[in-house]
């Protein structure tokens, strides 16, 4: 169905080709997963399939890409619209019309499909993706998972034979991600659509994949059966790491397969539960006063209550994960705690001061917040200029910010524009800027979005170090594996209220949506990460 023949792609001004001599074939009806670290060329590979690369992005293409007999060198993306459907990372940015039904019809209108056929296909597609009840809804009122499904539906109505998805679940909460994945597998099974999907958080997708394309980052590409590719791949989901540790063969890719192999391992584990307290800081068990105490916080937007009567205490040296559906009030709570967001009721005390009543400069010296889109905080031309500005803003000694940044990510290029940094580097830069004001409380809103496994590991280390230095840290995230590895406590929010709070193991190990893979495999024994298992096996 899709054939790459000796494909090399070099972007203008790039020192080296992003992809080099890629030769691979994706068969009709396959679900093919593309994996690789940030910057390895996943999006480039996907863009090549419908010709957006290089027709739209520029760059030099050598070799050819042939999709169902059509050469992308001669066919522009618009001429492939009836064959390849593409859904980008941010579905909202790609919507052209303003209601769901019209969005579904848009591609067909462009292709001059007959009106009765259009009507029929729209109805069929609404049912196929389970979004019939959304048909008249304006796009902006949809939740993240609904938007993603509408975006998939809107390209499906043109009856493409290939569907290309770039990180379809990365911004979604676990439940919404399951909905989207269920819809995708249904397309593969019922309609025989060929699906090519790139995903950082592959733990959920890999079990459905027929084959995996690995891009290690040097421009090459390798395609193969999931188990064989992952057995040697640097980046792999926790379940594969567990499989390698336990020596399982073939490697299990789903929790179900792993559980069937896990009995011997469960017996080998000498202790029934091993959840190390990662906070080594002296404050963790002292029960001393909280660094930040919030009582009855209420946040409202017009008639909508985003946060209802929430009380939290943050302690020095502890990492708290804030979880919950999209729109459950996590961001609103963080902004209210920092003092920059609206707060309709309740009190927030850091020491004996309320950050909302202080000037912005004083508030950030108490509580630092890295927002969901860290780039919003950056506005200068180079990394060095941003660092210098940060020092001036916080009246810090020259070079403070740069030193912090170097500690977080050692090789941050000072003369680069912040926009040219990778997601992980940009996050580290913004975190360094916020730490320059030396706040004791650090709040991170969805920091794991767009990070690959290596970047997430580095973030986990950074968070651990900060906690050891006595910072109190809150991380709002959907990434259960990250929470399992990084957080001491978990707060789960739903509909603006706290529904569960407690130590990580207690809260997430029993939850169907939030339990990490290792916990699901080894339950009823309580283990959260592969490292925990390795430690016990090593001792035993």
């Amino acid at each position, binding site marked *: 169905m899709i054939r790459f023949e000796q494909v090399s792609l070099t972007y203008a001004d790039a020192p080296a080709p992003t992809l080099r001599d890629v030769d691979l074939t994706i068969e009709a009806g396959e679900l093919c997963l593309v994996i690789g670290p940030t910057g390895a060329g996943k999006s480039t590979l996907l863009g090549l399939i419908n010709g957006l690369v290089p027709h739209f992005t520029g760059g030099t293409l050598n070799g050819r890409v042939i999709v169902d007999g059509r050469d992308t060198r001669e066919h522009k993306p*618009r001429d492939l619209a009836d064959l390849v459907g593409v859904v980008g990372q941010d579905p909202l940015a790609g919507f052209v*019309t303003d209601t769901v039904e019209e969005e579904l019809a848009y591609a067909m209108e462009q292709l001059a499909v007959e009106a009765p056929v259009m009507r029929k296909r729209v109805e069929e597609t609404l049912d196929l993706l389970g979004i019939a009840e959304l048909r008249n809804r*304006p796009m902006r*009122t949809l939740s993240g998972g609904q938007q993603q499904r509408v975006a998939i539906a809107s*390209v499906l109505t043109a009856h493409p034979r290939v569907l290309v998805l770039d990180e379809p679940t990365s911004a979604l909460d676990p439940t919404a991600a399951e909905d989207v994945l269920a819809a995708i597998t249904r397309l593969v099974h019922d309609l025989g659509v060929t699906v090519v999907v790139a995903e950082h958080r592959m733990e959920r997708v890999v079990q459905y994949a027929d084959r995996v394309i690995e891009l290690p980052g040097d421009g090459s590409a390798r395609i193969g059966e999931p188990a064989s590719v992952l057995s040697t791949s640097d980046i792999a989901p926790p379940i594969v790491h567990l499989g390698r540790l336990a020596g399982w063969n073939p490697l299990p890719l789903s929790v179900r397969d792993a559980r069937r192999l896990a009995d011997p391992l469960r017996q080998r584990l000498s202790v029934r539960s091993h959840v190390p307290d990662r906070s080594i800081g002296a404050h963790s068990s002292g029960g001393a006063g909280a660094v930040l105490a919030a009582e009855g916080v209420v946040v409202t937007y017009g008639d909508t209550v985003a946060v209802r009567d929430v009380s939290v205490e943050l302690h020095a040296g502890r990492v708290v994960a804030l979880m919950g559906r999209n729109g459950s009030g996590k961001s609103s709570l963080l902004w209210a705690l920092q003092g920059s967001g*609206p707060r309709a009721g309740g009190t927030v005390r850091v020491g004996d001061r309320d950050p909302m009543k202080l000037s912005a400069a004083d508030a950030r010296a108490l509580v630092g917040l890295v927002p969901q889109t860290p780039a919003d905080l950056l506005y200068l031309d180079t990394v060095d200029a941003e660092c210098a500005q940060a020092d001036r803003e*916080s009246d810090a000694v020259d070079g403070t910010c740069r030193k912090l940044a170097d500690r977080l990510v050692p090789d941050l290029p000072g003369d680069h524009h912040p926009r040219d940094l990778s997601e992980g580097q940009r996050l580290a830069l913004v975190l360094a800027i916020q730490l320059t004001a030396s706040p004791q409380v650090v709040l991170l809103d969805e920091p794991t979005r767009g990070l690959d496994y290596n970047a997430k590991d580095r973030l986990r280390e950074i968070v651990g170090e900060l906690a050891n230095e006595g910072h109190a840290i809150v991380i709002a995230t959907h990434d259960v594996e990250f929470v399992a590895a990084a957080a001491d406590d978990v707060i789960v929010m739903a509909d603006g209220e706290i529904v569960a709070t407690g130590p990580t193991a207690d809260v997430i190990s029993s939850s169907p949506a939030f339990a990490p893979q290792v916990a699901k495999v080894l339950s009823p024994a309580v283990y959260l990460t592969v490292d925990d298992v390795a430690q016990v096996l090593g001792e035993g």
Partner: protein
Amino acid sequence: MPRSLHPGAWWLWALGMATAASRTTNPLLLLLVIVVVAQVVAARRGDAPWARGFKAYLLLGLIVIGVRVAFRVLLDGQYGAHVLFTLPRVPLPSFVHGVRIGGPVSAEGVLGAIYDGLRLATLLICVGAANVLANPKRLLKAVPPALHEAGVAVTVALTVAPQLIESGQRVRRARRLRGEQKRKFAVVRTVLLPVLTDALDRSLLLAAAMDGRGYGHTNTVERSRRFATSALMLGGLAGICCGTYGLLDGTAPRVLGVPMLVAGTVMAWAGLAVGGRRVRRSRYRPDPWRAPEWLVAGTGIAVAAIFVLTSNTDASGLVPSLQPLRWPALPLMPALAAGLGLLPAWLAPPVQRTNVVTRAAPAMAGAA
């Protein structure tokens, strides 16, 4: 059967009401028109986001009146015999002869300003009603195929505006996280720049998405035909503009009115027909034009016609006298005509509720 009326019908009705309002300064008639328009809006507007802006147009109307009166009081108050009060006069050099700031303010002057402002406000409110009753984007969908690309450009622009506001709010809040800037002019650099790069990124994403979904999937046309299309369209639009102006402005020569409008329309239509042939696309569920559409559009045209006829034959009731100062009378025929404009409240089919559960659009965007 509840359905949404063709947006074109609402616009014809609203423009008819606006034409009528433009022919009179009688405050009683103008208020009647406003009440009628508001009543129809209340009866037949939907629950979509664009249907909520009517109050804003009413407010805008009040502002227009206020500004008009303020300027008249400040600049040109002395108009009649009944002086209300006298403002201190600002001495101006002789070369600005004829301009006066301050001085006596007369009842006639203020009243005249209120009448004029009210007329302008009524025009605004009529256009606002059309905007509220008919999704402006659906109207764009109904444009002829030749204008398709222009229509898309406008649609995209309409989406971009709220997004710009949203990312502006987001960036401004983010700025507070870095501590506030002391210098005010830094706003240009610290807020505008990120917002604009954000907008640029979004438009590139949108363009890529549109390209990938077949936008611009059309045949190429030869140059001569493209030239003919452009010439016909431009000529036609100029004709329509002149014609509309002639029709709205009672003092313009007759030739500029209806004949010009008809000639312009014919030319533009020819241009659309020639240009439309190259665009190969279909339309999903186009709004039908049935009896209710004819009736609604018809009432608008009828109201306008009666006002125009009255102003040509007996304009005394439409333009109340300021000198001598007299309480305006309500002329029977135009009043009945304005009442006629109320009929769409029943003639148009009831709207279909979409039952939108509006999720908070938190100012802290990103929360999505």
